[in-house]
């Protein structure tokens, strides 16, 4: 569990960023691009989203300038940690065909840089743990996921400004980062209360110019996170909806939501736990060499369930049902918990503002 390390004055935040980059480690941190907070390579403290709040609603995301010195006073942007470990597109292997027709298969040995991520949210740590289960804990651990995962050094910031779309308190995944980080920060106006969550994190904290964190400061920091939980407007009707959802597979709500859903796949792209990917082949023009890639896929596409003779899910009703039932019901069978961490991204980034919490409530409300 977390171990209190001390207090870092806001004026010394650059020291923390410098320490993260020590030894040539790549530092990724939140910054504004195209009007959204995204995780990008971070060179200096100045790039952080100083004084910005995000205003999120179903189908809406805006950044607003606020009167605060803080740089983590936002909830989450469209990305989670997912692209850093489960690459949107990566080469798995290359096949080479010799003149005599012999085939040689060469594994792609992409080098992975040690990477520190600053500003990780509790919901995204929970999602990372779910992706770890999926990619690493089965019969066939995924080598490229593992390499990227092991390269990460994670600095969480407890969330004090959840968006209107957030419901991590109801899934039990936030807003406080409880596990899965190396270092966790409470952001206060004057600076940061620093804790460590791993031996590497503890060693890292030894490099920081920390002062003692007063008990009063710790109490008020914890109170802010408690408030962030209490203030969340949305919630799921329970943490285990397996039984009610499996009883409602023919509920009229599925057809109703399908009337609104564009089947665009935005929800699956921003979801930090969605793991589906397609395997694709990219042959060289000379035909001698061919690269085998995997890239993110979505259960909202026709191709996702296509077989030689038929498409298992030919319409939006069955695709939306597949997504939601997998996320909130069958995920329990697969991984022992729900596949939703309450980040609210699918609500915000849905172009028509379909709200998973509203759909779950509507489905589970009546006894059909």
């Amino acid at each position: 569990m977390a171990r209190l390390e001390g207090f870092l004055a806001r004026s010394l935040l650059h020291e923390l960023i410098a320490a993260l980059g020590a030894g040539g480690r790549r530092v990724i941190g939140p910054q504004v691009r195209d009007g959204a907070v995204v995780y990008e390579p971070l060179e200096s403290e100045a790039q952080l989203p100083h004084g910005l709040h995000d205003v999120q609603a179903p189908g809406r995301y805006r950044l607003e300038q606020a009167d605060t010195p803080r740089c983590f006073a936002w909830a989450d942007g469209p990305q989670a940690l997912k692209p850093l470990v489960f690459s949107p597109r990566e080469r798995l292997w290359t096949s080479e065909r010799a003149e005599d027709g012999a085939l040689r298969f060469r594994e792609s040995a992409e080098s992975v840089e040690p990477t520190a991520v600053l500003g990780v949210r509790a919901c995204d740590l929970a999602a990372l743990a779910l992706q770890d289960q999926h990619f690493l804990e089965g019969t066939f651990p995924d080598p490229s996921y593992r390499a990227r995962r092991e390269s990460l050094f994670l600095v969480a910031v407890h969330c004090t400004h959840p968006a209107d779309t957030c419901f991590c308190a109801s899934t039990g995944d936030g807003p406080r980062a409880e596990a899965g980080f190396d270092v966790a920060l409470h952001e206060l106006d004057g600076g940061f209360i620093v804790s460590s969550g791993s031996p590497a994190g503890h060693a890292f904290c030894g490099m920081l110019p920390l002062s003692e964190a007063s008990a009063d400061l710790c109490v008020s920091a914890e109170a802010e996170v408690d408030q962030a939980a209490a203030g969340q407007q949305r919630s799921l009707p329970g943490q285990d909806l397996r039984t009610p959802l499996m009883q409602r597979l023919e509920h009229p709500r599925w057809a109703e939501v399908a009337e609104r859903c564009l089947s665009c796949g935005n929800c699956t792209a921003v979801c930090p736990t969605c793991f589906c990917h397609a395997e694709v082949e990219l042959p060289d023009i000379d035909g001698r060499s061919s690269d085998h890639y995997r890239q993110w896929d979505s259960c909202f596409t026709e191709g996702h369930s296509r077989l030689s003779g038929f498409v298992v899910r030919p319409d939006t009703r069955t695709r939306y049902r597949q997504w939601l039932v997998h996320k909130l019901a069958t995920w329990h069978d697969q991984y022992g918990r729900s596949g939703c961490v309450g980040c609210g991204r699918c609500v915000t980034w849905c172009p028509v503002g379909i709200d998973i919490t509203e759909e779950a409530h509507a489905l589970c409300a009546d006894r059909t």
Partner: protein
Amino acid sequence: MRGSDMSSQPVSPYLPSEAEIVERVEESPGVFTLSLRLTDPQRRENYAFQPGQFNMLGLHGLGEVPISIVSDPRRPDLIDHTVREVGRVTRAMAALGPGDRIGLRGPYGRGWPLQEVRGRDVVLITGGLGCAPVVSVIHYVLRRRDDYRRLVILQGVKHSADLIWRDRYQEWAGLADTQVLLAADVGGPEWAWGIGPVTTLLGQAQFDRAAAAVMMCGPEPMMRAAGQALEEQGVGEESLWLSMERNMQCALGHCGHCQLGAPFVCREGPVFPYAEIRTYLEHRGF
């Protein structure tokens, strides 16, 4: 020792091995069987499979497809796959012949419960090319005939001309304790068998309803109908096994396409006890 030589094992589970086509047999128009041999002696030595499991077969520059293994596990150095030309990869595969090289990785998944049903009647119900995965069962049972009681083979096809292995069915029909019943939705010249869906044959099938193991493969509506008819005849759901088909791209339980509700078909399947998947089969779209 199996799997002990790390140097000959692919590091990434995604990486195929080279296999050579030893023989190609045309089964019927558009259906062919490829006999494959892994070219690396060490990998050939380490390769073992169970009937009902499948391999990912890959063509250079085109991609991979999941194909079930139809040959006998006693002879794992020659791996037979019966393929129907239906897509981009299988059409190109149809043009290959002896000496050509393809990629192979596997075997994957859970096969038929042939060990645990020893001593029982074995009933096979198949439709269309569904016969390929259960042909491995027929061969398996015939080679170990004393381990099983009656063997009942029920095969349905759309058109009588779609039936592959007509000679073999004739041959099996003449064996002791073996019953072969065939049906076509549409009959044709010299079709002496039944007309209609394969489920119409169940009444004529002679087997012990209380102690038979029923294995099915084919279109889902057929398997649902057969499951219902069998249960009405007193066959318990715990005696039914189904081989399922879903989009399988990685075969490692990662890519997500083959989820049939909770189970991943590539990992928990393709052969499932009926009870594990019947909820999902009862709702179209899983």
